[in-house]
């Protein structure tokens, strides 16, 4: 066993040594939502565009991504929630928001035998407020004629950690309910009126799949990979839509995007818009201190918001519209190093 380990170390370190060449290493950290897109982009970019750059991205959460950018320990951060003015004031320079992907947050549920469930904003607010406690509540049955909902207790599951997914979900609840906006509000971590907490998307997904009668919010990829049922939601136009690449793209297309790119796209208008959609941003300083790294980072970001979009859409992220891509390229040109 020992010999095996020793020969393994020797073999692996030799491989490592062979790999050593002049490489620039760019470090980023933040949103776990972006992680699949980033790893895909890094691999494609490295093999087709620039071999001399390595990107290291660690998905430790949006909140942590913002903090690490502020403490200048990473070259870029990534977050599903735009930074507030107060948060940005804590950094040594101006921070740019570069939208890179958009995606949907779905309501996963555990009701054996019920493959299709429809919900609307008001019902969701009441479920997450703790006002609706049974699956056969008249408010839910009214939305689901013909479905035999059980008299089972609803188990609400939410995130216990700071999370961009929570931000998008609570942004939506706040936009449909003034009561929610006043009493709970929106943010990456909230004081929940009811329910169980789970750490990370995986924690929430785990609770939903284990507890009969559970409902909780997770990113689309987690619901899909865990073969979880998720609800269709009534959008601002009054239509019921499921979360798909198309319905998130439709929501993104209707979003009005301001100069600084800090925008919200929840409860978007349009027949085909999925209501709980959100963008995710790469966060970088406009004035880069490490010119060597910036020289590699900026071309990559330009590639990611244009060429890269076709790879991320394979992973269920909604692609950025052409005009948004052009505006982002202009913003990226303002980065100085």
């Amino acid at each position: 066993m020992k010999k095996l380990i020793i020969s393994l170390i020797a073999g692996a370190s030799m491989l490592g040594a062979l790999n050593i060449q002049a490489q620039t290493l760019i470090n980023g950290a933040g949103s776990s939502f972006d992680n699949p897109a980033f790893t895909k982009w890094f691999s494609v970019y490295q093999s087709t565009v620039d071999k001399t750059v390595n990107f290291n991205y660690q998905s430790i959460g949006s909140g942590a991504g913002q903090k690490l950018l502020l403490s200048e320990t990473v070259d870029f951060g990534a977050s599903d929630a735009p930074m507030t003015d107060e948060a940005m004031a804590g950094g040594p320079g101006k921070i740019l928001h570069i939208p890179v992907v958009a995606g949907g947050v779905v309501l996963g549920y555990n009701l054996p035998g019920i493959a299709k469930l429809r919900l609307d904003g008001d019902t969701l607010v009441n479920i997450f407020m703790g006002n609706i406690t049974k699956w056969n509540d008249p408010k839910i049955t009214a939305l689901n004629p013909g479905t035999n909902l059980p008299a089972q207790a609803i188990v609400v599951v939410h995130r216990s950690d700071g999370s961009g997914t929570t931000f998008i979900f609570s942004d939506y609840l706040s936009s449909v309910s003034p009561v929610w906006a006043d009493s709970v509000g929106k943010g990456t971590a909230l004081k929940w009126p009811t329910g169980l907490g789970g750490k990370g998307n995986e924690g929430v997904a785990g609770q939903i799949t284990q507890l009969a009668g559970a409902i909780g919010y997770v990113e689309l990829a987690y619901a899909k990979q865990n073969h979880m049922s998720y609800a269709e939601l009534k959008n601002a136009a009054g239509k019921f839509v499921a979360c798909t690449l198309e319905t998130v793209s439709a929501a993104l297309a209707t979003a009005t995007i301001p100069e600084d790119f800090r925008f919200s796209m929840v409860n978007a208008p349009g027949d085909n818009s999925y209501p709980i959609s959100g963008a995710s941003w790469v966060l970088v300083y406009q004035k880069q201190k490490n010119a060597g790294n910036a020289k590699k980072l900026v071309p990559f970001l330009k590639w990611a918001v244009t060429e890269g979009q076709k790879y991320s859409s394979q992973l269920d992220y909604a692609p950025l519209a052409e005009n948004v891509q052009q505006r982002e390229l202009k913003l990226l040109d303002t980065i100085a190093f």
Partner: protein
Amino acid sequence: MANLNQHNMNSTNHSWRNFKNGVMQTLTFVCAILVITPLVLVFYHLLWQGFTSINLDFFTQLPKPTGETGGGIGNAIVGTFVLLGEAALLGVPVGVLGGVYLSEYGTTKLNWWIRFTADILNGVPSITWGIVVYALLVVPMHGFSALAGGVVLGMMMIPLVMRTTEEILQLVPNGYREAALALGVVKWRTIVQIVIPAALKGIITCVLLALARIAGETAPLMFTALGNQYWSQKLTDPMAALPLQIFNYAISPYDDWHRQAWAGALILLLLVLSINVGVRFLTRDRSRQRNN
């Protein structure tokens, strides 16, 4: 008649006591089995889930991007060994020398404080170590690094190695020291040439046990080594490590990554087990020597 009664009572009393003894014996046996059950279950489960994903690629390749199956975690395996090496470089000299001081030099009062502090440090949650090193090393250096990862693991090793080294040195009979001193050998030479060699196997044992303990630490590395998708080329770059990679893969939504997380956990368990088995061999030799 009275005698017979007495005898009867004695025998019922005896079998009652035997029965009680039997119950307690069974109870302790069941508890002893319960203690080892988790190890058996964990090992079985990891073998079951992880074994099929282990192949040459797993040890030599880099992780593949999302959505592509295959690849390996060679960088994390190498990273773990590099981090353990760094930790040993920092933790072994400081810990062993500290233990020597406690055992051979220190005054009673000062020793009490040092031991007390070391015991508190041993109980500090590993995530706290991570945050401390993050604030002291990562933020001023403006970057995560393998160096910081090695420092945090090394710092966790120091109190552990120091306390166990002290205890091992205390086991060296005082006669050895007295004999050396009586022959006119100065104190430091007595320690270096008599006391430490006599206790060397014990010291190596406690170093190995400390390494086995820190090999599985995840929390402190998240704030220091951070993790890396590639081979790390410099100690000032972030570095991958097995526990970090297992954590990242386990929380991902992808089946292929889950499989690799199981396999990584199996490798980590085998690593720690082999260290422990190595310790067994060392200590077995030592007891045999003593018996001879």
